[in-house]
């Protein structure tokens, strides 16, 4: 685990030595802040209702930004050959994957902390249901952690960063849109689609409900994506 933390520290530092972390932070806060402001201006009375929309927006913007944060994590190591350095150290493959993942999670969590001003502003405007704020954030954090795990998997599949980002966005859209498809297929199949849809599992959180089933879903999805990433690294050895 110590090795994973070493790798996480190094990755976090390189996020901030490149413009990537700053660009993503500014883009995210800009878009979220803009939509939030529009919402307040159009309906000055509403408070708690705005939150559900705010969390939904956060998740959707993250769907497009997280693959950009994860695209380089493994793909760049492969294209520059540094993967050979990493994989010949006394470091296990899973430590590499967890280290990279933790760095991305830490970065995104710190970006999310910066959005806390928005519920605070709503609190000033009137009384706010903090329980709902909590469940919303739990939901957003779980969704984003799943996005990052899938993005990391995408990054392990190619040595081309842009390709990794595109594969990542495609995978996230799949897990997002499959919820929509669920309405237009047979009921039993639709149920399956709903259960594996990120969107469907997230909706309850944004309404203030913390559902164990949804938590299990996200933990499973994260676990699966990270496991697949480790296997993908191992597989690269076997080629």
């Amino acid at each position, binding site marked *: 685990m110590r*090795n994973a933390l070493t790798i996480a520290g190094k990755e976090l530092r390189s996020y901030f030595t490149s413009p990537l972390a700053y660009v993503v932070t500014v883009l995210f806060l800009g878009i979220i802040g803009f939509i939030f402001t529009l919402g307040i201006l159009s309906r000055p009375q509403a408070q708690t209702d705005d939150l559900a929309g705010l969390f939904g927006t956060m998740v959707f913007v993250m769907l497009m930004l997280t693959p950009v944060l994860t695209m380089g994590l493994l793909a760049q190591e492969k294209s520059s050959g540094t993967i050979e350095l990493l994989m010949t150290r006394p470091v296990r493959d899973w430590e590499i994957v967890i280290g990279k993942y933790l760095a991305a999670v830490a970065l995104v969590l710190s970006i999310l902390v910066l959005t806390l001003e928005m519920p605070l502003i709503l609190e000033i405007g009137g009384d706010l249901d903090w329980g709902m704020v909590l469940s919303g954030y739990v939901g957003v954090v779980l969704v984003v952690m799943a996005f990052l795990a899938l993005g990391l998997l995408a990054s392990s599949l190619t040595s081309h960063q842009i390709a990794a980002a595109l594969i990542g966005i495609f995978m996230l859209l799949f897990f997002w849109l499959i919820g929509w498809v669920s309405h237009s297929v047979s009921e039993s199949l639709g149920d399956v689609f709903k259960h594996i849809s990120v969107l469907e599992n997230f909706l309850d959180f944004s309404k203030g409900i913390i559902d164990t089933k949804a938590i299990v879903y996200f933990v499973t999805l994260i676990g699966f994506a990270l496991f697949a990433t480790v296997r993908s690294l191992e597989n690269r050895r076997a080629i």
Partner: protein
Amino acid sequence: MIQAEGLTKYYGPHPAIVDVSFQVAEGEIVAFLGPNGAGKTTTMRILTGYLPATFGSAQVAGFDVAEQSMEARRSIGYVPEQVPLYTDMRVRQYLGYCGRLHGMSKAQMAERLEYVTDRCGLNGQLDAIIATLSLGYRQRVGLAQAMLHDPPVLILDEPTAGLDPNQIIEVRNLIKSLAGDHTVMLSTHILPEAQMTCERVMIIDKGQIIAVDRPEALTAQIRQAETLMVRVQNDTETVARQLQDISQVAAVRPAASPGAYYVDTEIGADLRAQIAEFIVNHGWGLLELRPVEMSLEDVFRELTTEEKGVA
């Protein structure tokens, strides 16, 4: 210190190396010599744990590279052909990261950092961003990274590739100076490099080891006779014939320049003094007399053509 037995690696249906076996003793410097694509990098990647072998096994410092991978990796310092550097980092940060991945403590790190900086000639470059370094310095950072955790074994894949002549000499001297402290295995496709830096050469071609020996022994193995080159001032038609008559001289062949001859003598015979005296006594005017060393280049060509003949 390094032991490989029957290493075979397939990429799909194509074998990259076939039944590669060898041993490297402690403190030895060994060159892995072969043309590009012969299987040098594949073999090194198997030893360092980057790739698994399809068949066969290997041990480094007594640890099986597949079964005891972590222990084996701790015993190895490795510089791949493409030096693996994070170009956005400073040299100090980079080496610090490598050290931490080897579980080195702060105190160990401080001590070893000073040592490798000194040894690899990186003084004054520790705070440089790697992207700004020349190829020669990047190679040194690669070597520093490999030596940092004081591994008994160093594996260097084409350590002089892409360097200018001065840098090549510096890197070769550095590698030579490691003899004794470390067991070094380096790969190269440059024959004189193997001859200059290494005590033993393994020649690999098309994924198979075709010869292993000391550079001198390899040349001797191929060479049927010792050869001297002589050049005289007053060349006459009888020179060659009269030289031929000296005992133990096997053959005399004219060389390219006028008055020059190759004199093949029986193996083990040193006729230099005798021939010099003979030429002087005949008043031919001795201009030059030297033994002709068969270069590894010749050995290599000989061995690889033989191989082609078999196939």
